[in-house]
């Protein structure tokens, strides 16, 4: 578990270094994730080492949003003055994005003959 955690942190560290050194728009952890996908595809041993720890972290993923979420108390004035704008923007854009994504996927899958397995 310590080994897995050390490797996960190492990928994040490498991602941060590359992101900052190259002035990339991608946050360090995202680069770390991309790097780890590549590494996991290459090494079965690494997959077996990382999986239990990663699953443990991901099962409690929502907990990690709480501290930033509590920041809502510091943004009450903004939320009050832009409440309608943000509400309309969130509802319309989220529902529109789901419909556009699902319809596009369905049409393109039909076009290229990609079928679901089940």
């Amino acid at each position, binding site marked *: 578990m310590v080994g897995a955690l050390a490797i*996960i*942190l190492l*990928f994040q560290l490498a*991602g941060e270094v590359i992101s900052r050194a190259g002035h990339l*728009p*991608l*946050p*360090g*952890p*995202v680069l*770390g*994730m*991309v790097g780890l*996908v590549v590494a*996991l595809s290459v090494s079965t041993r690494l997959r077996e080492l990382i*999986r239990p720890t*990663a699953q443990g*972290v*991901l099962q409690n*993923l*929502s*907990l*990690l*949003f*709480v*501290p*930033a*979420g*509590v*920041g*809502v*108390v510091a*943004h009450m004035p903004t*939320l009050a003055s*832009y409440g309608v*704008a*943000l509400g*309309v*923007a969130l509802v*319309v*854009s*989220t*529902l*529109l*994005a*789901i*419909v556009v*994504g*699902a*319809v*596009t*996927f*369905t049409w*393109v*899958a039909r076009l*290229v003959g*990609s079928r*679901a*397995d*089940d």
Partner: protein
Amino acid sequence: MTDAALIWSYLASKPLLWLCATLFAYWAGDAIFRRSGRKPWANPVMIAVILLAVLLGLTGTEYQSYFEGAQFVHFMLGPATVCLAVPLQANLGAVRRALVPIVVALLAGSFTAVFSALAIAWAFGADTALLAALAPKSATAPVAIGISESLGGAPTLTAVLVLLTGMIGAIFVTPMLNALGLKDWRARGFATGVAAHGIGTARAFQVHDTAGAFASIGMGLNAVLTAFLAPLVLRLFL
């Protein structure tokens, strides 16, 4: 000073109290979520945030001193993002078989999410900082927070907007796509993961396994794409 005041001044200066409160608030939120039969409106994060916000208000605690304790939990967002590599790698085979629809739907869904949100908020007269906080709201929280920070938005505001986005998606996705008659579970799941990240993905897993797997792929890919897309689209509205 009385004993109680002395103890309080000790607790208020150490991270232990608010770290403890954060874990207990989430534990309570999760218990309510399970008791409700995992209804999307009983989101455990939302419940924990409300409990803690009330507690901060009652004790007159500033967000900054709360965060001194909660930062240990917050820190784990980075490693958690790296951990998303595990489900993504496990599903690489399914990704390869549906590569073309995935790429096209990812571009269409991700662009729609960023552009329509910014266009609406901009039309309502939102300022630059608010637009920056709003732009990455469809990406998974750890990534959205990182993007928002780099664009000059408030990361804590982004966190709230991300949570609301996920809940809106989770509540409406099933009735909406049923009404449209879309039956491909890959398409339904994938679009939900792209637009409503982890909360949408959790919802997709409740409805259908294939939808859930494709939702996690959509969430992972959109985390990467939003990091590129959000700064570009934001520039259109500045």
